[in-house]
């Protein structure tokens, strides 16, 4: 279990790390590492791999928004049924059930502000059980998944010291 956890930590830090490097770092052979990763993938603990982008540096005009959604819970289904329906929209990149004044917190990605607005009014708000929505547009990303995007610049450090 400890070994699995070590490997997951390394992958979470850098999903592109080679099996060879993982093997050397945790002190087992490469074949074992590959086997464990395969097992983690098959048992759905690793759901996928993705890159963290600094979108501002790309010429990408995508827009992101956080949406707070109030939902009437349903008999037998609770919030799950509404949440699952909402998750099916490709615009929704993240969806959480949360404590507090509202129930679901979504992160939504669209090509423009208008696209997100029409998703909210045309699709999201009309779903059965959705009582209200509040949309917050994201202006700038500073940190994602533990990575600070514009981290401190390098400064002159010694190359050799005692």
């Amino acid at each position, binding site marked *: 279990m400890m070994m699995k956890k070590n490997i997951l930590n*390394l992958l979470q830090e850098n999903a592109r790390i080679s099996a060879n*490097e993982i093997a050397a770092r*945790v002190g087992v052979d490469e074949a074992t590492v590959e086997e464990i990763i395969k097992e983690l993938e098959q048992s759905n603990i690793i759901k996928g791999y993705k890159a963290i982008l600094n979108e501002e540096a790309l010429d990408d005009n995508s827009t992101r928004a956080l949406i707070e959604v109030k939902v009437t819970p349903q008999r037998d289904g609770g919030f799950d049924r509404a949440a699952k329906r909402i998750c099916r929209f490709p615009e929704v990149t993240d969806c959480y059930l949360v404590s507090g004044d509202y129930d679901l917190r979504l992160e939504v990605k669209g090509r423009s502000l208008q696209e997100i607005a029409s998703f909210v009014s045309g699709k999201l708000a009309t779903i059965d059980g959705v009582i209200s929505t509040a949309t917050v547009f994201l202006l700038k990303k500073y940190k994602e998944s533990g990575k600070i995007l514009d981290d401190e610049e390098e400064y002159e450090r010694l190359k050799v*010291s005692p």
Partner: protein
Amino acid sequence: MKDLKSPRKIRTADHINNLPKSGIREFFELVIGCDDVISLGVGEPDFVTPWTIRESAIYSLERGHTSYTSNKGLLSLRKEVCKYVSEDYGVQYDAENECLITVGVSEALDLAMRAVIDPGDEVIYCEPCFVSYAAEIAMAHGVPVAIENHEGNEFSLDIEVLKSKITPKTKALLLNFPCNPTGATLSMQQMEDIAEIAIENDIIVITDEIYTELTYEERLNSIASLPGMKERTIFLHGFSKAFAMTGFRIGYACGPEDLIDAMNKIHQYMIMCASINAQEAAIEALKNGRQAMEKMRDEYRERRNLIVKGFNDIGLTCLKPKGSFYVFPNITSTGLTSAEFARRLLEEEKVAVVPGDAFGACGEGYVRACYAASASHIMEALQKTGDFVRRLKQK
């Protein structure tokens, strides 16, 4: 017009003239002139100081804490230090009288030497070691007596050799475990043997514990915690390595009141006190820095596995160090001296390691590589070192 006398030819002090030049310095000059170097040559963490510690240094400035502190350092820091040393090293010190905050452990080492050495006193120390030890002893007008530690003994201390070095002039024994540059540590049996010898011969033990947090196997208490040892041990430590705070220059010494008093006397005339902002950052390190410290240690442990395997795969035999963040691979199979190896590796592959003889004559035949560098950095350096060694062996 009066004749102007030209200054005498040699006007610097003899004991300074006689100090050997630091081998690391020469190599440093070589590296300076070389661009895009992948360096395994540093002696400090590649991590930036954990944010919570940096933030408290900033807060310290914001609140306008820009004054001197008491010579011994902020009492609140000394209390935290003594609590930490008690919990983690198994020895109790009184924050008022038995603890002194210094500008890095380097200052504490200098103070310890000057406080205990009379001219001609012998101080035993182990080589290979941190470059300052012999010089510190000599600058305090003492006589450095080296014990040479060898690969066959995993670079640890040989008790019989220690016994053979003791004379009526032996004043102190300087211990540096975990060791820079070899990563060697002491076992409990060795510490007990050393303690027995120190008590029998009335020797002061100065233990430099700067790398102790970076111990990857069983972590033992300090030798100062053994019966009869607290009263004859100066415990030196600091924040540079474990908390990645080298630039803060903050260290400390704990020991019996008479020794700390003598060290403080020198410290007050020479330094006055350590920087208040660094002291306040150090308080935060001890209060809330443990998790970050342990995370860095775990990272070093993995990189150690990576680099040890890498050197052995290349054909440079390399022991797995039990502590610190250095490996000391054996390069004799290449037929080069340490200095040639390091120079040519730098020139041909732009990889910097430190020649082993910089840490004492018995370090010849080895180089020091620091694994406080990112894993990708280490892998690239290993690959290039591998290419270099293969080329050498083909010829």
